């Protein structure tokens, strides 16, 4: 048990220490997952009646504290929201300050956390938490520890799309990993599961969430169901054999952007199947986004084509049905028709989508057996 106060600002800089170990110098709250007992079904350890989970509480707390100290560029909760008329209920936000980072900026930001020398105090303040696998049965938090190499850093996004917007970045760069890091994807999904809050979603965009050949994720909180989560689905494949390894593959119906949904209570099965599919997509150079929702039991796959006419593409959040408008005029005039057109224009062609569906079912079938 620990009783120390929060560690924001209490960093031991490497003025005197060596520069060799890149994880030295940065200390933060360290959350350890409880160890798995060889039981892949994580749902058995989660107790929904007990209120917010430890990880949920500490993440929200760290983020709120970061916001309170004024490190965010703006208060995202002060940005007006509305539901756009029409059956799909797209969500619009009026935000003239939001800025999507460029890839170069991501690189610089993450390097500053990994490197022993910080670029500025502000970047360290943004390090909210580190998450890593633990050895004890129950999850636990150490208030001040160096992030282990196999850990995941949770860094606040100063230009949040929604409350609690963070980056999930590997603590140490694995030189050997190719662009898709299955272990990292597994950790990101596990975080979603441990936060155990339906408002918390993790996302990945193949076009923008890869820096120096290394992937990272983003996550944030939004309490209402996203439009895609409310969309009807039809099942494509359902493995009915071993209940523990059940994975359901379905596609959305009536949603303007074609999407495939993977549902499973078995995190390992989910991670395996989705990873395999993403490898294939990467080989085909198909752009796609992933949305991990429902406490890590559901993954939405949004394949996209590059629209050669408009050059338009959608961020993961937009794929889910949430749009940010920079001007009041755009915000007031947002329409479901216009959004649906944008989505349709980046959606896969029918034949390509059929192929993808077959691929997903085949992979699910192969891996789950």
């Amino acid at each position, binding site marked *: 048990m620990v009783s120390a106060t929060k560690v924001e600002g209490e960093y031991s800089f490497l003025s005197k220490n060596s520069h060799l170990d890149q994880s030295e110098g940065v200390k933060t709250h360290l959350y350890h997952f409880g160890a798995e007992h060889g039981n892949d079904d994580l749902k058995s350890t989660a107790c929904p009646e007990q209120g917010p989970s430890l990880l949920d*509480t500490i993440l929200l707390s760290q983020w709120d504290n970061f916001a309170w100290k004024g490190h965010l560029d703006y208060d995202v909760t002060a940005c*007006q929201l509305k*539901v756009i008329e029409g059956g799909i209920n797209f969500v619009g936000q009026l935000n003239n300050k939001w800025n999507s980072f460029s890839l170069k900026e991501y690189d610089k930001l993450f390097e500053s956390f990994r490197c022993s020398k910080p670029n500025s105090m502000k970047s360290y303040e943004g390090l909210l938490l580190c998450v890593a696998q633990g050895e004890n049965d129950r999850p636990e938090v150490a208030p001040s520890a160096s992030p282990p190499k196999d850990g995941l850093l949770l860094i606040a996004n100063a230009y949040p799309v929604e409350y609690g917007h963070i980056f999930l970045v590997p603590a140490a760069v694995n030189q050997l990993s190719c662009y898709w890091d299955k272990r990292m994807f597994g950790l990101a999904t596990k975080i979603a599961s441990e936060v155990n809050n339906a408002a918390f979603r993790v996302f990945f965009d193949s076009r923008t969430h890869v820096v120096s050949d290394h992937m990272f994720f983003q996550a944030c909180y939004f309490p209402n169901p996203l439009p895609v989560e409310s969309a009807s689905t039809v099942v494509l494949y359902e493995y009915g054999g071993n209940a523990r390894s059940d994975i359901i593959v379905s596609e959305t119906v009536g949603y303007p952007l074609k999407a495939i949904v993977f549902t499973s209570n078995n995190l390992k099965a989910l991670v395996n199947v989705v990873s395999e599919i993403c490898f294939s997509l990467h080989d085909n150079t198909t752009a796609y986004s992933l949305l991990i929702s429902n406490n890590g039991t559901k993954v939405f796959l949004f394949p996209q084509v590059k629209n050669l006419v408009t050059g338009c593409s959608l961020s993961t959040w937009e794929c889910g049905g949430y749009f940010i408008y920079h001007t009041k005029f755009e915000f007031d005039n947002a329409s479901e028709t216009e959004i649906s057109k944008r989505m349709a224009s980046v959606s896969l062609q029918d034949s390509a989508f059929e192929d993808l569906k077959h691929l997903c079912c085949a992979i699910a079938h192969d891996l789950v057996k």
Partner: protein
Amino acid sequence: MASSGAEEADPGEREREEHGDLHHQRRLASSLTARYSDWVLEALDELPGSFLLTDPALAGHPIVYASRGLTALTGYARREVLGSGARVFQGAATDRAAVAGVREAVRAQRAHQVAILNYRRDGSPHWVLLHLAPVFHARDGSVLHFLAVQVPIDDAGRGAGAPCRGAQGAVLAACREEARVDDDFPCASYSGKVFVDMDKRGLEAEKPRVASDSEKEKAISTANSIVAALNRYSKLTGLVVSGKRCDSVGIPALSSSLNLSLGYSREEILGCNCRVLNGPGTSLEVIEEINQHICSEQACTVDLLSYRKDGSSFPDLLHVSPIRDASGKVAFHIWVHLDVGAKHDFNGLTPEVWQLGAVGAVRVAVRGLSASGSLLRPSQ
């Protein structure tokens, strides 16, 4: 409801004569729009329930706004009551003591709740829970308006300690005439009783009806929505209006997960202002600091001494923070108390971390709610 202090007869009558006067109408309407904004009337129109806003600064303390729900409850058209004093709803059998209590609350500028017998337009009496609350100017603490919420009390909500005693026949007949009700309407005999008691002066008039908890809660939540609406639209004219006077913030909702062992039941705390936890040792400077942060919509954490219902004190780590809803405006402030002296198991987290985690959870939840407190919906 009574006019502030003055005699009830003439000023109200005079005002009503000018009722048709357009200039007068405009003056009443501007009582709200000048203080808040043009949109405040639309916002108030959206709120459910029967309520009034009155302006104590105008002669006769007239009604300047009546909600849509007023007609269904009282039978009066909204424009009919504008400009009148709120006593237009009272009648012969309305308990004078209850009316006096309301008048006193208006004079003292404090919130008040009482079950009272009102009369509809057609003369039929009905029991309502009247919830009165002042709306304060945040900076100088002056009262801008009073709001009065009327929640109908169920027939079944009749208090247990209210036996129907027979009243003197003649008096009862007279009251029945006034009330125009059926013979077996419970209030008839009660009105008689009250009437009789008035003559006997020394006797306490029994409270004839008791509002149920849900009726009380409904009154409070309606009052809070009204204040939130006023609060929201006050910003547009640059006027900062506090939900209530800065040093008396209400507690609209109490989460059961908040660690409070104050001795008050949840129902007792709901609707109270946070001063209920203050006591002799509570630092006034700290309270002032909290007030200033609330008025400027900033969060703060303070240490202060708070008191339980039994009078015992505890060191309170209090975090107060504005919470915004989907409109982006502040919906209310959250007060998270923590008894620093008691043992808590926060799984290794410090109390401060736990507190902010609770605040964050509320922020996330309220972010998805529209201004009326319901889930975000497409605009009509």
